[in-house]
């Protein structure tokens, strides 16, 4: 029975995640259009709502082109690594407290592992492989440069990302994500207690997901498409999907760690409880994530791209010291205030 519940949870969450990702793509296109004073895709379905479906069909129908000198096996493997790592990270994120169905309490989290934070850091650090491998195996200079850039970028920002989380861990006194969320009841969200940690983590998350203004790996004017220049058809689609899933996962992480996860302030005062509250909490979680995703998108279309050396010096000379200072300050505060 436990296994069955787990399978149901996995299928539901993955399904929702993929659906959300597909519509995030549409959202991005519509928002971009609005910012650029265009209309955007609005033909397929009402207001273009079926556009993602059409895109998927298009990508599947396209021919899969592999460059002649590419390393075939690794070329195929790279997008699979990218997408699977993006998906597995979501497994530990609690998207709600727990729900009681047919007399059974079900935790709204796929895998409740007691070192969840470390698991997430480990998984994001593995994400580099997909990018690096695709860049190398394509045997093309644009891909290789894009792959190298993004590996260097992800490695540099991973460190500040990990250090930014430490402040949160110190406050919660636990590496469990559900515990971290429980600690942020009411308005005691970590963004209040850890403003510097929040900023460092968010900036690092932008860099980790290769999003604007850190999207140098695929800087179009210089590198064509970056590491996925030589990909087409379904494999390109997988990279595309991975990129947007990473964005959603990053938003979910920021929500969990800094924005109170599924917590709704004053929920108890309003007399909410039971399954209704749980559903509302899941809704709150989704709303927070979506707002962050919107933030990601707006940043992309409003801020210019960094130069590569600026990006590196920002990572090592600003973010890293800031993250370390944050740890010191947090430690001091805990020592003094208790």
């Amino acid at each position, binding site marked *: 029975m436990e296994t069955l519940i787990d399978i149901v949870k996995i299928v539901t969450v993955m399904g929702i995640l993929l659906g959300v990702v597909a519509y995030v793509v549409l959202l991005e296109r519509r928002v971009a259009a609005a910012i650029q004073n265009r209309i955007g895709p609005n033909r397929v379905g009402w207001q273009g709502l079926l556009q993602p479906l059409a895109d998927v069909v298009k990508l599947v129908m396209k021919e899969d082109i592999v460059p002649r000198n590419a390393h075939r096996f690794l070329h195929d493997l790279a997008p699979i690594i990218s997408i699977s790592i993006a998906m597995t990270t979501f497994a530990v994120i609690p998207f709600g407290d727990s729900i009681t169905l047919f007399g059974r309490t079900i935790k709204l989290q796929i895998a409740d592992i007691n070192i969840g934070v470390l698991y997430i850091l480990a998984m994001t*650090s593995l994400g580099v492989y997909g990018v690096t491998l695709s860049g190398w195996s394509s045997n093309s200079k644009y891909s290789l440069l894009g792959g190298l850039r993004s590996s260097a970028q992800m490695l540099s920002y991973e460190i500040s990302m990990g250090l930014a989380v430490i402040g949160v861990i110190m406050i919660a006194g636990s590496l469990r994500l559900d515990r971290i969320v429980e600690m942020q009841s009411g308005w005691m969200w970590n963004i209040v207690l850890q403003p510097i940690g929040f900023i460092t983590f968010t900036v690092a998350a932008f860099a980790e997901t290769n999003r604007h203004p850190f999207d140098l790996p695929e800087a179009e004017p210089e590198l064509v498409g970056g590491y996925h220049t030589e990909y087409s058809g379904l494999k390109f689609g997988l990279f595309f999907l991975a990129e947007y899933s990473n964005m959603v996962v990053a938003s979910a992480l920021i929500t969990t760690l800094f924005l109170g996860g599924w917590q709704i302030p004053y929920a108890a005062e309003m007399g909410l409880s039971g399954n209704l509250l749980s559903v509302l909490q899941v809704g709150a979680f989704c709303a927070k994530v979506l707002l962050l995703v919107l933030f990601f998108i707006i940043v992309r279309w409003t801020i210019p791209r960094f130069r590569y050396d600026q990006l590196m010096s920002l990572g090592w000379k600003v973010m890293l010291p800031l993250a370390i200072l944050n740890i010191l300050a947090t430690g001091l505060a805990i020592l003094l205030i208790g």
Partner: protein
Amino acid sequence: MTLIDVIFWFFAAVTLGSAAVVVFSRNIIYSAFALLFTFFGVAGFYVLLGADFIAITQLLIYVGGILVLLVFGVMLTNKVVSVDIKSGTLNAGVAMVVVSLTAGTIAGIFYATEWKTAPAEMLQPTTAGELGTMMMTSYLLPFEVASVVLLVALIGAAMVSRRDRSKQEAA
């Protein structure tokens, strides 16, 4: 054979098989990627031993950090696929005898030894908290000395790899 046994042998096979590829492959890029699976296998052992923190750190540090840098270096090396690692076999016969004798001795001794083991009930659900406490109490000194070692290595790496600019200008 319980499920744990099956998992153990699976990890053992992955670790040893990929380690063999690391050593015997003539293509350095295959070696680098085979190392990835070796590290994964070892992380699996740690999980089986109940050392969750070490397992995830293994992934975080070795797979996510060190190996990426290694692959990075390999990728930056020009024409890496075509480079044959020259490892000619010298004195294969003698080496074979010596190695099999050593391996036999070690295996024999290990088989005959009664190792000191902790009872399985002592396994903690999570080891992270206890590890942290130990590092700050009874293992404080090694912890701090390790940081000095790392600092020395860091400075040394920078010292070795940095170009001597004054020399360059003079030349």
